[in-house]
């Protein structure tokens, strides 16, 4: 039972990272990004490619063996070595995260130049296609992430032996809390206000002295880095990377629904939305057993459910459960700035 709850919690954390970042991009800044899975896949690819090979280097494992081609063998050797070496294990985890943050930030920065010039609808399409292209690359390239079959990766908490799953879980929870807090701090600061102004009226924001293009680029790069972290954490929580599993439905459209249902522009609302939908999806997996009589794989009911939920939300509650809270100056002065009115 506890394992089940813990599993849901990890799932919730990963999706929280994604939806909070999405809210930062769309809810606050107005950057319409339908290709959230693009940086997530980058994170997953780096996780598939890097830590295993670095570990191989550290332990001087026979260079005739390839991490990808001889995956099972190499991973079992590394498992033995790493399970008695917590320092190297954790270092590999942090190395992966740091490299992912850097790579994603740079890629976000490079993409921002052409992409942010596009009108809002084509930006969304561009991001979607970028993600799809990366999926193609990931699934076809065997040496990156095992191609279609996927690849097993090292366990950075293997030294906890039986409790390794709790290790990675607690790490994910901590990191999620940090990421949510960072986003909350930014959103409640003058920068959050600035982002909203860009969302409302870019031209006027420029005409009051804000370098809109530079700020949007920074938002995109930052968000890419955060989503990359999400990808890394997801990969480690699965102990394997199967790029085929990072579909636009699971890692772009579901987070969009979570944000819309919760309330665009409101971080607490987004958390609520993520939570309720994560619970719903996990319950569905259990409920699957009642539908085994159907002549098709029940996973295909998920996209239909997602579609119906999106449709209902768009028609009946487009603003979500919790709408954006406007600033109340007295509260702001008392609570945030600790001033007497």
């Amino acid at each position, binding site marked *: 039972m506890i394992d089940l709850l813990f599993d849901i919690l990890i799932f919730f954390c990963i999706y929280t990272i994604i939806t909070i970042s999405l809210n930062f991009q769309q809810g606050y800044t107005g950057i319409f990004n339908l290709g959230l899975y693009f940086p997530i896949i980058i994170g997953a690819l780096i996780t598939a490619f890097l830590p295993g090979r670095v570990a191989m280097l550290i332990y001087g494992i026979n260079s005739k063996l390839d991490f990808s081609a001889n995956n099972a063998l190499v991973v079992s050797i590394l498992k033995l070595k790493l399970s008695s070496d917590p320092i190297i294990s954790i270092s590999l985890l942090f190395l992966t995260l740091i490299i992912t943050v850097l790579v994603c930030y740079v890629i976000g920065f490079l993409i921002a130049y052409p992409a942010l010039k596009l009108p809002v609808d084509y930006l969304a399409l561009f991001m979607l296609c970028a993600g799809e292209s990366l999926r193609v690359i990931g699934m076809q390239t065997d040496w990156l992430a095992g191609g279609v079959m996927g690849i097993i990766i090292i366990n950075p908490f293997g030294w906890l032996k039986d409790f390794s799953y709790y290790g990675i879980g607690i790490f994910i929870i901590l990191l999620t809390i940090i990421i949510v807090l960072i986003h909350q701090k930014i959103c409640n600061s003058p920068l*959050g206000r*600035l982002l*909203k102004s860009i969302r409302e009226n870019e031209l006027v924001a420029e005409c009051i002295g804000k370098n809109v293009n530079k700020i949007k680029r920074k938002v995109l790069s930052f968000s890419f880095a955060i989503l990359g972290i999400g990808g890394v954490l997801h990969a480690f929580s699965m102990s394997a990377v199967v790029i085929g599993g990072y579909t636009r439905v699971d890692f772009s459209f579901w987070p969009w629904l979570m944000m819309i249902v919760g309330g665009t522009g409101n971080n607490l609302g987004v958390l609520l939305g993520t939570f309720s939908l994560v619970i719903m999806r996990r319950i569905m997996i259990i409920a699957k057993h009642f539908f085994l009589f159907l002549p098709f794989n029940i996973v295909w009911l998920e996209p239909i459910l997602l579609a119906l939920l999106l449709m209902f939300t768009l028609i009946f509650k487009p603003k979500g459960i919790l709408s954006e809270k406007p600033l109340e100056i007295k509260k702001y002065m008392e609570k945030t700035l600790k001033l007497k009115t």
Partner: protein
Amino acid sequence: MVSPILSLGKNHKQEKNKKLLIIENLSKRFGSFYALQNISLSIPEANIVLLIGPNGSGKTTLINCISGVYIPEEGKIWFNGQDITGKPPHEIVKIGISRSFQIPEPFKKLTVAENLLLCSLNNPGESFLNSLSKNLWKKYEKFLIDKMFNILKVIGLEDKIDTLAEELSGGQLKLLELGRLLMLDSKLMLLDEPIGGINPLLANEILFYIKKIKDAFGTSFLIVEHRLDIIMKYVDYVHVLFRGNLVASGTPEEVTRKKELYDIYLI
């Protein structure tokens, strides 16, 4: 109704011939249509300059060129000796020119307070890294909020401080536009129909306040307005635009006497 801000300013020594803004042979084309043709004019410091002309004569286009929203095809614009032609709007604001919009463009889903607080040039809380630590921007926010309260008193929107901009009336939006500019403390303010839709009493109050700012800080104003009956008495110089050309310039007395003005407006 004298704002505390003005008591801070000292009476500015006017260098009579110092040109703040110089426009040289400016032309702006849209396809084959010339919105502005060969415009040359200058605005000295501490001057309220009026720009008039019938609809479609290019007044807003001129403001757009100065503020960087449009890039002119020909000509140059100098501000305080610096060539600002073709610079992007955010740089021009930082250099010291701000503008309002003919049809008010507020940040609709933000409150009046937020609309005003955004108009600051160097808020440390607006940088990515600094925004994470409240201590780095608390002080500046307090300073901004004080300034905002003063300006709210001036434009008369104190009771609307927490109202979303989209809920304001047309006249109130104009006041908000003005408020934004006042927050920015620019050396040159371009006002596009600032008193449109505002009752004459309040309009006079605002113009009187603008004159006080000019006297206290040496700020110059380029105002596009149609309500000549109200504004003429506050104005130092007038330029007349007609179909993209500058057809007359002079003091209010000189221009109102010119026959051409009546011809233009009667067409």
